[in-house]
């Protein structure tokens, strides 16, 4: 696993460099003039809802789709017209496990290694090493078709790194995997990143991107809306203070009364018994509690709400968090 990083005197070459990339299918623009670059050794997230253009982008970067416009450079190699030029440098884990069901786990890995020209001894040793790393040694001689979904995803990731690629493209790696399996896969991705591989991760799981990625691109309807590090993305929303109050009773007029009494705060009715309070300054709970108790309303709980990347995503992209959650539930079904 290589990670050249920055060597003094060496010209910095991004692992992935994309400019003005565009892809249309009939009258639908799947990817619309996107530009970005990924540094060597970076774990870069591509976050967006289903149909946002994530897989189409990966397909163009890896040579499975031809761009209508724009340029692609992988490790400095211009692959726009010749995707084969850099295929030896990349590993790809597609959104669906696509190994051979009739071959065993070990045979699948050996076959994938052979596609990259590894000798028999090399590929067998590497296959055993990866089966061990991914806790699949016990299943090595079982046919891939009989693997569980989580095992299939793990072996597909192992197949993607069998040839020790510089750059790994992971397309929705945890979709459809149970909670424990998804957690294990996230650990594997973090380990690969620590080992120096540049990881390009597409996901529609916001928490996954938040937990793993150094930088994230938000893509919606084929367009990149924003690219930044997680702290930078979170900064505007972290400047705001949010508190959730659980009350014994909430009258519809209560928010208006509170807004009149505390005009520097913004009150919002959430659900039965709950209101949210927002402010650009730290919120003092005491006066609010006294105000409510004077009206016979008991404050059961006052809790500060930590803003999440999901809030940022909703704010920046306008895509409802609920829609993303439904996709997540659908993916895990």
């Amino acid at each position: 696993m290589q990670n050249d990083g920055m060597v003094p005197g060496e010209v910095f070459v991004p692992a992935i460099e994309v400019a003005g990339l565009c892809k249309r299918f009939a009258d639908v623009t799947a990817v619309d003039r996107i530009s970005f670059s990924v540094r060597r050794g970076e774990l870069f997230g591509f976050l967006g809802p289903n149909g946002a253009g994530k897989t189409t982008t990966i397909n163009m970067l890896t040579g499975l789709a031809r761009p209508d416009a724009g340029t692609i450079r992988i490790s400095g190699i211009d692959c726009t017209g010749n995707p084969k030029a850099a295929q030896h440098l990349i590993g790809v884990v597609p959104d669906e496990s696509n190994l051979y069901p009739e071959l065993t786990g070990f045979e699948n890995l050996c076959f994938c290694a052979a596609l990259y020209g590894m000798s028999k001894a090399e590929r067998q040793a590497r296959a055993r090493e990866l089966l061990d790393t991914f806790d699949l040694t016990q299943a090595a001689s079982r046919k891939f078709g009989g693997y569980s979904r989580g095992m299939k995803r793990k072996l597909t990731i192992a197949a993607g790194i069998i040839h020790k690629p510089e750059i790994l493209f992971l397309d929705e790696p945890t979709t459809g995997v149970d909670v424990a399996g998804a957690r294990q896969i996230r650990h594997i991705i973090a380990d690969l990143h620590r080992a120096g591989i540049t990881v390009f991760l597409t996901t529609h799981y916001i928490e996954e991107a938040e937990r793993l990625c150094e930088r994230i691109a938000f893509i919606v309807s084929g367009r990149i809306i924003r690219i930044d590090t997680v702290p930078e993305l979170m900064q505007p929303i972290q400047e705001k203070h949010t508190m959730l109050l659980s009350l014994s009773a909430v009258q519809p007029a209560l928010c208006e009364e509170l807004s009149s009494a505390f005009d520097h705060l913004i009150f919002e009715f959430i659900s039965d018994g709950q209101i949210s309070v927002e402010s650009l300054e730290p919120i003092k709970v005491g006066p609010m509690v006294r105000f409510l108790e004077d009206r016979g309303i008991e404050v059961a709980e006052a809790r500060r709400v930590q803003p999440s990347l999901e809030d940022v995503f909703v704010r920046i992209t306008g895509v409802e968090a609920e829609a993303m959650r439904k996709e997540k539930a659908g993916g895990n079904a």
Partner: protein
Amino acid sequence: MKKWIAFWSILIKDIRAYYLKPPNISWGLIFPIAWIGMFLIRSGRGMESVLSLLPGLVAFSILFGTTSMLSVTVTFEKKNRSFERLLLAPIPLELLMLAKTGGAILFGVANAFVPVAIAALLVNLSEVPWCLFFSAVVMIAVASTFLGLFIAVAVREVFEAQTFSNFFRFPMIFLCGLFFPIEKLPVFLRPLSYVLPLTYGVDILHGAVHAGNTMPYALDLSILGAFCAGLFMLSLRNIKRKWIL
């Protein structure tokens, strides 16, 4: 060297995974045996007819063995997306497709020798020029396989591959001189025979087995070669156009 490791691995994987499976072996054996038996009984001329039937049966066995197997396996791999794994490998598309078709070509050649082995038990084949016969077998296998590839690239579903294969194969049985001479076909059908690659392969086989060829061997081989190159180039173009979207 690395490319050839990939080439051999794809070829061997396909032979193990698809062609050496019991259903295919039984298909390769039972099909020619059944057809030989049927034609021997139907001709009513006993062993005399074996030599005249052999070229047709050889061509028939190759055609059915290669076209359906390749078109089905490639369509199956395309459908379950394992073909993407091959497209992502750093090997030229031409070499990749030669590896994918190599298994079917070898399977077709092996199928061809089932009727030959049976015929050898019934009649004397010592006069057959085996070099010429083998060249024709290989060329028919290559042309039929590339026809299967062309079909595989044209369809999306496995059942479509089967249907489309039959659309080509069954007319070829009657139009390519397998079991009766092209001259006996209605005049308006004869031009059709000459646009089908199997006609030229069968002509060489008829010549090799019982000196019954109607065209020079060099012409037959050249036209077969042109068909092979044309079908392969056309398939590659379609793969680039349809599969690398």
